[in-house]
């Protein structure tokens, strides 16, 4: 088992990045161009809440029906959790993060620069052209902060490093059934991609031992973020294992490698080439077909949609995903949680009962 001390904390990673002379960008979920940040002298550290940060400070700016990620991230910022970062990047993932970008930029005006990135909702040629331009705009803003205008060599170096880390992440998923690690450890490593430098992530991902993987009823886990991590302990105790995922913090960010061309267009192609995803406007049938393929490949017997409360992009798809997958014989369980709480008894009971039906 990975010890909790085996990995540096995000705060330590930030300090190390600054010691290397890099600037640090706190990045909200979840699609963004790591290469662009790196090429402009920034190290990205992602902020997914964090869970268990009290909502209080954030609740002074957002109504009660706002998702936990936005409210807790705002609390975290206001209590000084992002002190020392040079920029906060808010990708336009959904209406809630749109609101957060707006409130930060218009009212809270924190010391770090607030940067935004609009992610197009289609995969058409015009979306690609727009995204490339949008990335050029963001690059200009990053250069304005760091003073770094990457040359061809800097771009290539950034692409090489981040592509290696992306490949290491993809390899982790490919080797999942052969890795002798628990789900909790597996996702601890997957999620280290959120803050570790690419080179360190590659080394970490490569260090996971192969052998007998844990037994259990295989599940596919979908949703935004699998928090708290105790979820995996509970699933294991119920006799289940995560054979594959469709998590925003996981396999939805398995971007394709794009070998050559203008850097901004390459980045646009990478981002637009990610697996189907409700926040990117993928048709539901396409998404259902993708999930069905993932279930067939991984041997998963059921789909658990594990949602953060008030997450509209996820909530809209659930009934039709259930219908599409039922046609293929795959049952779906939908669980909603709040990030700050331990997994409630009701959710646990439902998970246990679901696993029981799949034995």
């Amino acid at each position, binding site marked *: 088992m990975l010890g909790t001390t085996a990995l540096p904390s995000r705060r330590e990673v930030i300090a190390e990045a600054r010691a290397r002379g890099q600037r640090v960008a706190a990045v909200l979920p979840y699609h963004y161009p790591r290469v662009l940040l790196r090429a402009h002298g920034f190290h990205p550290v992602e902020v997914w809440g964090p869970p268990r940060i009290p909502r209080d400070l954030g609740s002074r700016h957002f109504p009660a029906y706002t998702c936990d990620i936005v409210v807790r991230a705002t609390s975290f910022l206001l209590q000084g959790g992002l002190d020392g970062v040079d920029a906060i990047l808010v990708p336009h993932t959904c209406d809630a993060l749109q*609101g957060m970008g707006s409130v930060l930029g218009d009212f809270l005006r924190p010391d770090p620069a607030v940067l935004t990135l609009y992610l197009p909702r289609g995969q058409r040629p*015009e979306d690609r052209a727009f995204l490339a331009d949008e990335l050029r705009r963001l690059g200009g803003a990053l250069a304005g902060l760091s003073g770094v205008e990457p040359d061809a060599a800097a771009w290539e170096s950034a692409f090489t490093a981040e592509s290696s880390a992306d490949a290491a992440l993809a390899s982790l998923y490919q080797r999942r059934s052969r890795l002798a690690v628990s789900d909790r450890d597996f996702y601890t490593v997957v999620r280290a991609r959120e803050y570790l430098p690419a080179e360190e992530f590659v080394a970490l991902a490569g260090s996971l031992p192969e052998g007998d993987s844990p037994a259990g009823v295989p599940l596919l886990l979908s949703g935004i973020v699998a928090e708290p991590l105790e979820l995996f302990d509970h699933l294991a105790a119920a006799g289940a294992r995560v054979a594959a995922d469709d998590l925003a913090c996981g396999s939805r960010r398995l971007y394709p490698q794009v070998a050559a061309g203008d850097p901004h267009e390459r980045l646009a192609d990478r981002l637009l080439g990610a697996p189907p995803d*409700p926040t990117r*406007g993928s048709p539901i049938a396409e998404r259902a077909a993708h999930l069905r393929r993932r279930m067939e490949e991984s041997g998963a017997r059921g789909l658990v949609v594990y949602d953060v409360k008030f997450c*509209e992009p996820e909530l809209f798809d659930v009934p039709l995903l259930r219908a599409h997958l039922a046609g293929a014989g795959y049952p779906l369980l939908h669980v909603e949680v709040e990030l700050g709480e331990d997994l409630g008894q009701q959710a646990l009971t439902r998970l246990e009962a679901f696993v029981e039906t799949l034995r």
Partner: protein
Amino acid sequence: MSRLDHLLRFRLAGRAGLALQRRRAERRIDRARPGAGPGLNPPLRSVARMRELMSLHYLEGRYVSGIRPVAWVTSGAPSEILKALGFFVVYPENHAALCGARRRAQRLCEAAEDAGYSRDICSYARTDIGSVLTGDTPVGRLPPPDLLLCCTNICQTVLYWYRVLADHFGCPLVLVDTPFQYRESPLPHEVAYVRRQLEEMVPIAERVARRSLDEKRFLEVVTLSKQASGLWLEVLERARHRPSPLTAFDAFIHLGPVVDLRGDPRTVAYYRQMLAELDGRIAAGKGAVREERYRVLWDNLPIWYRVGPLSKFLAERGVNIVASTYTHAWGEVAPLMDPRDPLTSMARVCLYAILNRSAGQKLEAMRRMVGEFSIDGVILHSDRSCKPYSLGQIDQRRTLAEELGVPALLLDADHNDPRVFAEEQANTRLEAFVEMMGR
């Protein structure tokens, strides 16, 4: 549906019947006498014509399948291209609002929830999905779409919702994606992106309509849209007069044609007539509220299932909600529409939608309106179903109160789901708000 049905039931009997209903309603309004003391004056006579216009539209919808191509579109979408191609255009949001106003929304929301849709998703979407699943609608029948047009300039929710509709109906979904405006003016690549999507939309719509876009007709529709939006803005601006000849509750109701029937000469004629009626009221010194003591600005969507009671409750306390950011949204774009360069100007209009602009820009709009309409207080409807409108309101309220010294109330509700609205609590808070304005 046959052409004969369309001819007999809509064109002949329907039109004649609705015209008769309208004349009766006008006579009732003419006979109505204002009561004594605070409260509302009789409604605008124009309401009868508005009902006739909207009823005709929905009546045609019952018989239009197979006669004209049908498109379902979002309220901020550039529908002029479709109208020029002869599409019959349905606005599910407007239909949902109608269901809300007719107290039909709750059972439709429940139908959607029974099918697995969460109570935490937009109540317009639940109302509409519930109606699609059950066929239940106060308008008799909604024609199924041949094309869906979704513009993200009001929220991302519409895209999730229209993906559900596309899956259900199996028809093409055209997306017009509009980058959110954190800045005051759109950047060139943002305008170019929206314009290019409009260009790409044309051949798809032409294929569905089985005809080519006639440029002359398109420009005619854009011109009529601009005229309707401009007249709508003039209608709203009449509320600057004291006493105001209309309330924002009137505006919520009279908004229907500029949303649903833009590009139609009847809409232009209707708003001209309404404007003349308002000018008549102004000349006679007659306000919509009998004793207008406080002038209030409303932010966000209406609470459709409480429009009447809220209007009465406030009028009885001398409060006239004279303006709203929501109704202004369909008027303030008029100057941006340019028939000489329709696609680029439509792209700019799409980007300028109030819900596509930052919370700070919305605050600026409110600040401006506070001055222009001599506002004594602001009610910000914290609408559980509309996050783009509601996120940011806590800071907007604080700024209005602290920097402008304007009493501002955050009122928790939902635009279409009455289960979220606590009437007693809301009334208590509104009473306190009125008291605060009186200090």
